[in-house]
Every structure is written in structure tokens, then in C-alpha cells.
């Protein structure tokens, strides 16, 4: 299963490195979102600094949608999805592979966005360990739910509109917990983040577990 996961993740990441869709489209999209938040909340740096954790995670959530759609768009051409089904790879491995490829791209994006909130919103990046832990745990949960709903929506004619509607309400706890963890980290009160990190870890573990079980039947049906 893990070997299959590494194969699938390697394939997805290789495609992304060669096509540069993530770099050329998803990254600039996230920067545009950050700039628009800045315009919406006005030039007062105190307001922006106090809201930066939440804005960061909303930008991540929106970018996750694009990353997941991209992850299944590469399977839609040339009957690649049928190839994947016929490849004999363990479906749980395919799920873990695709989810980790999405997570890896998101983590790179988050590194860029972190610099963005520091520069544009004046956020103080103290408590780096908490910030990184929240990013890793939160991103794993987002990638798991996204990959799971991605396979539900892929192949449907209304996938572009359906995926956000299914995905965003479910990841509400990630937005809440990751934002609070980041708030604590940015304010230098790392101790307050521990419970929120637990929420992120529980969420990620639960949805990774569901994904490994449910992905097979969903891939088969599509």
C-alpha cells in the first residue's frame, strides 16, 4: 500500500513539476486572495495583523479546492482514470498517494503564504514550531477530505460547483482549529495551541482512515 502511495504521489508531483500549473496558477491565485483581503479590511495594519491567521487559512482552503480539482483534472484526460483503476494498485495506496501529493503542494504554497502574511499584514512569525505543526496537521486533514470529495465529484458534469459545496462545510473545524493555533503561535502563546493541534490531528487521522476505506468503491464507481 505504501509503495503504491509513493508511486502515485511521485507521478502526480512529477506532472506538477513539469506542467507548472501549481506554480503558475494556484500560487498567484493565493497571492491575489491575500491582496483582496487586504483591500477588504482596509489599510489599518493592526486589523490585518489580528486577522492574519484567519485570512491565511481561508486562502489555504480556497487554494485546496484548486489543488484538488487539478489533481483530478490530470486523471480525466486520455482515460488516465481507467488506467489507474486497471493498474492493480491498491486503492488505499492511490488515495494516500494523491492526498500526499496535494498536501506536499499545499505545504509549499503555505510557506509562500506565510511570507505573504508577514510582509502584507505585518504578522509576527513567533512560535514557528506551532505554526509549522498546525500547517502539517491541518494540511493533511484538508488534503484527505479534498481527495475523498474530489473522487466523488470527478467524472460528474457539475463537479466544479459541487466540490466547493461538499468540501467547505466539512473542513470548517480545520479552519477554526488551525486559525486558533496560528493565533496562539503568532501571539507567542504557544501553550494555548496544544488543544487546537489535537483537534487538527484527530480530524486528519479520522478522514485519512475514512479515505483509505472508502476510496476504492468510489474510484470503481466513477
Amino acid at each position: 500500500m505504501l509503495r503504491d502511495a509513493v508511486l502515485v504521489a511521485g507521478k502526480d508531483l512529477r506532472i506538477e513539476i513539469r506542467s507548472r500549473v501549481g506554480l503558475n496558477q494556484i500560487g498567484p491565485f493565493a497571492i491575489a486572495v491575500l491582496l483582496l483581503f487586504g483591500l477588504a479590511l482596509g489599510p489599518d495594519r493592526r486589523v490585518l495583523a489580528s486577522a492574519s491567521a484567519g485570512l491565511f487559512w481561508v486562502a489555504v482552503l480556497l487554494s485546496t479546492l484548486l489543488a484538488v480539482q487539478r489533481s483530478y483534472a490530470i486523471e480525466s484526460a486520455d482515460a488516465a482514470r481507467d488506467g489507474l483503476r486497471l493498474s492493480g494498485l491498491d486503492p488505499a495506496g492511490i488515495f494516500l498517494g494523491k492526498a500526499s501529493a496535494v498536501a506536499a503542494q499545499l505545504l509549499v504554497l503555505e510557506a509562500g503564504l506565510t511570507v505573504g502574511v508577514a510582509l502584507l499584514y505585518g504578522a509576527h512569525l513567533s512560535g514557528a514550531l506551532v505554526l509549522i505543526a498546525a500547517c502539517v496537521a491541518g494540511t493533511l486533514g484538508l488534503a484527505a477530505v479534498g481527495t475523498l470529495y474530489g473522487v466523488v465529484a470527478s467524472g460528474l458534469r457539475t463537479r466544479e460547483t459541487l466540490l466547493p459545496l461538499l468540501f467547505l462545510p466539512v473542513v470548517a473545524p480545520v479552519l477554526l482549529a488551525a486559525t486558533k493555533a496560528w493565533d496562539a503561535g503568532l501571539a507567542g502563546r504557544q501553550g494555548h495551541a496544544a488543544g487546537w493541534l489535537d483537534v487538527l490531528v484527530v480530524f486528519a487521522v479520522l478522514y485519512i482512515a475514512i479515505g483509505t476505506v472508502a476510496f476504492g468503491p468510489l474510484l470503481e464507481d466513477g
Partner: protein
Amino acid sequence: MSTPARVLAQDRPAALRVLGAIALVGVAATVWLGLFVTPPDQFMGNLVRLLYIHPPMAWVAFLAYGIATLASLLYLWPRTRAEHFDRLAGASAEVGVVFTGLTLVSGSIWGRPTWGAWWVWDPLLTTTALLFVLYLGYLALRRVPGEFHVRARRSAIAALIAFIDVPIVYFSVEWWRSLHQAPTVLNPTTHKTYVHGSMFWTLMLGFVSFTLVYAWLMVHRYRLARLQDLEETEGLEVAIEERRAEGEAG
């Protein structure tokens, strides 16, 4: 494969009409008792009258989601997999969404004069609002056409993904609130302390009649889903013919 005539005969339309009539009388009695017979509350005044319908609506919404989840699980479990569990899940979720909407609206109308705001970020309220969108998404997914078992399986899995989220949302919001200043407004649970006599029985009647309304809507929605499936498989013509025969018969 059953014919539409058998579907309709199994449902006993007469019994269904009786159920509908009892539910209607129950709701009418609740409204009458709630508006004219019961006294105004010592603290809330006439606002208390909203509480004869608001908790019953919320109860029906949660009951409906519980049944939808159970039916989805039974559909996914290979030994109990049957088409009727998928229809049951769909019908129940749809009625649940309607009652969630009514719960949110009635709660908001009650909250404005009581709390001074249409909305507070209370764990129960926030979870209810998220449930509303979660299940709207589920219903949207159900409407995407496809082969029966493919659609049923992906819907059942989506229902479970949504359901597992509910406790996580509830506890994280509760915790989020507890870290902030506690609401200085009236605690929504305290109203139970003041429920006495005629007020208590009116509320109980509300629970019973709204549950009957739920049952009545469920049977109708389930019947409709079954006929829709039959229409797809056997064609519109047959369904219309049988429906006409049933109308003439009784």
C-alpha cells in the same frame, strides 16, 4: 420488480391520509394552545410562545439526520444493502434540511428580542447552521444523475463523511466559545425551568405533532422517490396509468 400499482397499494393511501389529518390537527392544536390558552411567561412574556414550536422543529431535524445516517450505514453494509435504505436516507435528509431551515429561522426570531441579536456564535447554533449547508451539499450530490447503485453508494459515503464532522464541529466551536467571554445573555437552556402545567403539555403536543408531520412527509417523499425510480426504469406511461387507476378506485 414491483409495478407502480403495487407501490401505491402498499402505502395504504387511506392510512396515510389519516396520519396526515392527525398531524394537521396536532399542529393546529399546538398553535391554538400556544397562542391563546397558555399564559405568557414570567420572564420572556409572549416570546415563550415560539418555544412551543422551536424545540420540536429542532428535534425533528436531528431525528431526520439520525435516520438518514442510519439508513446510509445500512445501505453500505453489504448484508443489509437494499434500495429502500437509499430512498429512506434521501427522503429523511430532505425533510431534515427543511426543518433545519425552520429551526434556524424560528430560533433567530426568538433570539433577536431575547439576546439582542439575530445570531450568536453558540456551539449549537453554529453546528445547526453548518448541518444545514452540509446536507444541502448532500442533497445536491444526490440530484446528480447516475446509475442507481453508483449514486446510492456515493451518496451514502458522502452522508457518513458529513455526519462524522458534526461532533468535531460541535466540540471545537464549544471550546472556541469557552475560550472567549461567556455569553452574557440568557442561557437558551434555562427556559426549561419555567415550563409548567399547560405550557409543558403544549410543548409535548408540539413534539408529538411535529414528529407526526415528519412521518407523514417521509412516507410521501419516500413514495415519490420510489415512483421516480420506477418512472426511470419502466417509463412514464405505466406510472400515469396506474396512478389514474388508483384515483378511480379510491
